[in-house]
């Protein structure tokens, strides 16, 4: 299991409402950062800050080196090579980079090499019904702008993806399938293989949302078989303001950029521009350099812990949260209880309390020093499908203790009584 690492996270010693110690269970929204990350980021700014890849002076050299070393660390975490990792400002930006690149291609950018990225009337774009808005709206809007059709893999009444009818959803005219590797609401880790297999059969690109998987379980892009994957720094113990897109090199080299500026180009005239290879072509303007260095440090920190150990730790937390919540009268756990021994769920639990609104549930938790998340967690369609407008979510990370998880379940147990709701 994990070593005792609470001391690595300064914020965890804080007290919150009424002087209570902080029970941080909102890591699915944003994780806390260890000193190693804070120091890497601040130390860079204090000692090595310079313009990356642009200057001939020593600071510029050191900054470039730190930036590229960080890229290599992030690549190593997901089993990729460094030139397949593009820095972005976050997962949302990374997913939009792909969808907007496809929009550019569909409007004629990128020449013949960009053919595989073109969509239009008669083509299909596939997502799932449980996607985070960040992996739904870019595709929905790409469809609206190009005349392609949006279809989705549906979920059942329990919130699980229905993979039975895959070939009716991922039809022959499907050009891209975008889906999450792990749901930020149900906590279920997606069975990637059948979706990728079907997508390949019809020649569709696959785009994984790795936001909730990369920080919590071992992820190996070669083994997953998808074409592209997005993830964020701040959910994997890194800084805000940075994220990454991984993609097969030949795809990245052919995808037209959709954000334009300096540093990404070979030759610019007033009339035309030629772009460099990936990843540089997607990194116009001053990059989040200090943040990339921080994200690199976060990747190192996680690799030092060992992602298997991280997953095992969180599986234990998952069990307490999910079994605990599911057992409470009047509490509905969204998604299956799961079998943490098989690592099929994340260390999170989103629940609906019968008769009590999620905001009110959150208020009770907050009063006890428990930081959880309330609302639709940027997954309105999923909640609507399940007959809910919102839920209350507790989500863990490496620093979450069993006591934290028990505190959530216990607080939850008292909510209905507080609001005078009886079965």
């Amino acid at each position, binding site marked *: 299991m994990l070593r005792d690492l609470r001391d690595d996270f300064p914020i965890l010693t804080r007290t919150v409402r009424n002087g209570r110690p902080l029970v941080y269970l909102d890591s699915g929204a944003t994780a806390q950062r260890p000193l190693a990350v804070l120091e890497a980021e601040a130390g860079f700014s204090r000692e090595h800050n310079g313009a990356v890849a642009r200057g001939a002076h020593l600071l510029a050299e050191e900054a470039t080196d730190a930036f590229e070393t960080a890229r290599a660390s992030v690549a190593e975490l997901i089993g990729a090579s460094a030139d397949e990792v593009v820095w972005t400002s976050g997962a949302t930006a990374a997913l939009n980079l792909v969808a907007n690149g496809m929009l550019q291609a569909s409007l004629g950018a990128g020449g013949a090499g960009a053919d595989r990225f073109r969509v239009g009337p008669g083509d299909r774009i596939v997502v799932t019904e449980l996607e985070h808005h960040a992996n739904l709206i870019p595709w929905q809007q790409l469809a609206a702008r190009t005349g392609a059709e949006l279809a989705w893999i549906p979920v059942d009444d329990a919130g699980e993806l229905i993979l039975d009818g895959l070939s009716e959803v991922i039809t022959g005219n499907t050009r891209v399938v975008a889906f999450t590797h792990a749901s930020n609401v149900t906590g279920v880790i997606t069975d990637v293989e059948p979706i990728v297999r079907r997508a390949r059969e019809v020649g569709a690109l696959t785009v994984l949302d790795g936001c909730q998987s990369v920080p919590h379980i071992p992820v190996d892009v070669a083994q997953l078989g998808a074409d592209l994957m997005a993830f964020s720094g701040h959910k994997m113990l890194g800084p805000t303001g940075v994220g990454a897109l991984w993609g097969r090199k030949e795809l990245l080299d052919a995808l037209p950029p959709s954000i334009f500026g300096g540093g990404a180009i070979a030759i610019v005239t007033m009339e035309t521009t030629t772009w460099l290879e990936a990843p540089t072509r997607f990194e116009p303007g001053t990059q989040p350099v200090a943040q990339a260095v921080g994200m690199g440090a976060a990747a190192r920190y996680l690799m030092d812990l060992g992602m298997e150990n991280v997953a095992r730790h969180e599986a234990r937390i998952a069990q307490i949260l999910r079994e605990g919540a599911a057992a409470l009268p009047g509490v509905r756990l969204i998604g299956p209880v799961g079998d943490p021994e098989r690592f099929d769920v994340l260390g999170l639990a989103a629940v609906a309390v019968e008769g009590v609104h999620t905001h009110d549930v959150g208020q009770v938790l907050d009063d006890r020093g428990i930081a959880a998340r309330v*609302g639709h967690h940027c997954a309105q369609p999923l909640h609507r499908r399940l007959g809910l407008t919102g839920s209350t979510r507790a989500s863990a990370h490496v620093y979450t203790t069993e006591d934290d998880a028990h505190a959530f379940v216990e607080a939850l147990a008292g909510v209905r009584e507080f609001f*005078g709701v009886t079965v």
Partner: protein
Amino acid sequence: MSLEAMYQQVIMDHAREGHGRGLVDLTSAGRGESHQVNPTCGDEVTMRVGVDGDTVATIAWEGHGCSISQASISVLSELLEGESLDTADETYDAFRALMQAKGEPLDEEREDLLGDATAFVGVGKYPARIKCALLGWMAFRDALIQARTASSGAAVEGGEA
């Protein structure tokens, strides 16, 4: 502040009672309707306000939300139905002031205006909940403006006829 201080009994009662709930058809000459959404949680309210001369004649609404938003709409409905337009405006301003007051009580005059609505004083300590408490008031404000415009339009038209 304790949780009990925020969820005062008045609030709990109003959340259950829901004064004014039910979207009746309005008959006043001045009618307005507003739909408001709280984007964080998807809570919604549709409110209809009828104006008769100088009076808020009817308040009717439908919606769903947390106990704070539901109670706040109920209090508002009970408080303002039948009141003069001027009182409605003043009460609206007082409630907004209460929300900005970070948990501190207002002056006596405005407290009198607010009546049961003073119970929401604790909400001002929780910025994330202010939106909840204001949801209905925003809808009311918006519907009232429409109702007034319609009402004075009707008056003018009537005058011309």
